[in-house]
């Protein structure tokens, strides 16, 4: 069964057309990640799905029913916000149980669900505390717990980890992955973070300017980007783009080469001087000036002694390159 289906969805704020003809299906139990540059409409799409904004046109179907005119609380969704949005005057337990009280669930059921969620998220020691007395990571776990207790058909996460530091982000990411396996609920997750997108997603939706650019599994998008935008957006460091004329191609076309598929040393198709070297321990990023506007990045696995200013030959496998036409569509 499908958990969510969007058909020809449009959203405008007055004259500003933010979402354009979105068609999207989320299957039951699927983990879908929305990525895209800032301002492309990810949050707006999530808010339209949640019912916090009305769709200008198009149909939103959650489970079996069309929910265009259903208030947020009755859509069978739960949402986790970037800013946590906990109720400041309620303690952790009350924060998690408020929605259930609002639904007039029996008391025993509320207690059981809160206990279950608090066990899952290790919140037991904090149940009596106010949000002000919790750390950022704990607050975000409470916000996740508040979503879990509702047992929604669909979880919506809007950049839930972006306020956390790197270590905590990794922990919470693992926790969300674990939660997804345990709950078997469908989840939609908005993020800026490549790693989150690649590691969590069953399916990634790349958005640009309110349009869906490509939908597919993480490896699908990485190996088979439909256009230059998707190719450059996924992968870190991002793909090198070189005018095709440099490699014997036709005018206007471009060739994309991922930094990890380039090797240094043997006589290659391209050459240039090293501008800067980033030593990351596990890998080394070499940034090379090949005479184009954008610098060329090479990712080497392991540690290498390369001096800035050195002249290097860049070799790569022709089969591992991507060709795009002038408009950015993939040719091969």
């Amino acid at each position, binding site marked *: 069964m499908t958990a969510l289906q969007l058909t020809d969805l449009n959203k405008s704020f007055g004259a500003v057309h933010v979402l354009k003809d979105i068609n999207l299906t989320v299957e039951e139990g699927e983990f879908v990640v929305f990525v895209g540059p800032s301002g492309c409409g990810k949050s707006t799409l999530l808010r339209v799905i949640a019912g916090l904004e009305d769709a200008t046109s198009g149909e939103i179907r959650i489970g079996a029913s069309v929910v265009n005119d259903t208030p947020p*609380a009755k859509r069978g969704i739960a949402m986790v916000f*970037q800013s*946590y*949005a906990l109720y400041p005057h309620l303690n952790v337990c009350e924060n998690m149980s*408020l*929605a259930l009280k609002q639904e007039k669930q029996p008391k025993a059921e509320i207690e059981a669900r809160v206990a279950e969620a608090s066990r899952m998220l290790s919140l037991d020691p904090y149940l009596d505390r106010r949000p002000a007395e919790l750390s950022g990571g704990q607050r975000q776990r409470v916000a996740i717990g508040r979503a879990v207790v509702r047992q929604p058909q669909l979880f919506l996460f809007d950049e839930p980890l972006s306020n956390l530091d790197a270590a905590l982000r990794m922990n919470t990411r693992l926790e969300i992955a674990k939660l997804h396996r345990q709950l078997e609920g469908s989840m939609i997750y908005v993020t800026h973070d490549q790693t989150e997108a690649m590691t969590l997603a069953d399916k990634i939706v790349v958005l640009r300017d309110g349009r869906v650019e490509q939908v597919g599994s993480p490896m699908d998008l990485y190996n088979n980007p439909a256009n230059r935008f998707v190719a450059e957006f996924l992968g870190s460091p991002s793909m090198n783009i070189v005018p095709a004329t440099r490699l014997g191609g036709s005018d206007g076309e471009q060739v994309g080469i991922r930094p990890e598929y380039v090797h240094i040393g043997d006589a290659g198709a391209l050459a240039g001087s090293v501008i800067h070297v980033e030593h990351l321990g596990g890998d080394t990023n070499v940034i090379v000036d090949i005479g184009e506007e954008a610098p060329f990045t090479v990712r080497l696995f392991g540690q290498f002694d390369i001096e800035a200013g050195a002249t290097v030959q860049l070799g790569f496998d022709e089969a591992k390159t991507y060709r795009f036409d002038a408009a950015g569509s993939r040719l091969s």
Partner: protein
Amino acid sequence: MNKARQNPLNAVAAHGALILYTLIALFPVFVILINSFKTRKAIFREPLALPDADSFSMIGYETVMKQGDFFLYFQNSLIVTVVSLFFILLFGAMAAFALSEYRFRGNTLMGLYLALGIMIPIRIGTVAILDLMVQTGLVNTLMALILVYTAQGLPLAVFILSEFMRQVSEDLKNAGRIDGLSEYTIFFRLVLPLVRPAMATVAVFNMIPIWNDLWFPLILAPAEETKTLTLGSQVFIGQFVTDWNAVLSALSLAILPVMILYVIFSRQLIRGITSGAVK
């Protein structure tokens, strides 16, 4: 305060300035208080002396208690002030919430219209207001005063509160909506507690002018049973003789309730519970 950031010289200077200001501000109140316990002669002979065995007298308070129905005036003032403040805060906050939260046609225009009252003094409309009160039969009722003061306080209240409500986290309100709270619950339970300091500010701004007002009680409700304290005290100020004992005693008594109200509101000013709601 953090010890490392504290410079003792700065602290002394700051406290010195604040203490000086407090003394200056409290001096007139102090003079009124001590003189209200003195005989008429003593008031004029040595206005700054403390009352002693010779000059001590309760005559002012006795006059106040005997003359007219002072407790009734008191009660009237209190009712008018408290009820007006309640309506100003309630309707002001509701209007501010609507203006800051909902997108509707004419939203900005409505906000400007409501703010217009800040610039135009309500007293300009006194004649029209009196006419209106006469026609609706509200002359000589406390209701007349309450309505006028509510109208007078609303513009600033809406202006200040809508500014504060815009700052309340959008996510928090949306979380409430997703959890099934009604718009009223979101307003009363989530938003109002977070703008409490602003509400207290509005209350303090409005309280004193209402309590002290002489103009509207004199025009709209001069009857004996609706007199406010300020109006009631005027009987002691004659064209030729002024009963200073009584005036000072009445003023001393009038300070008390505002002070109590002020203490209540100012505690809200200081207390903030916003921390921890959002990052």
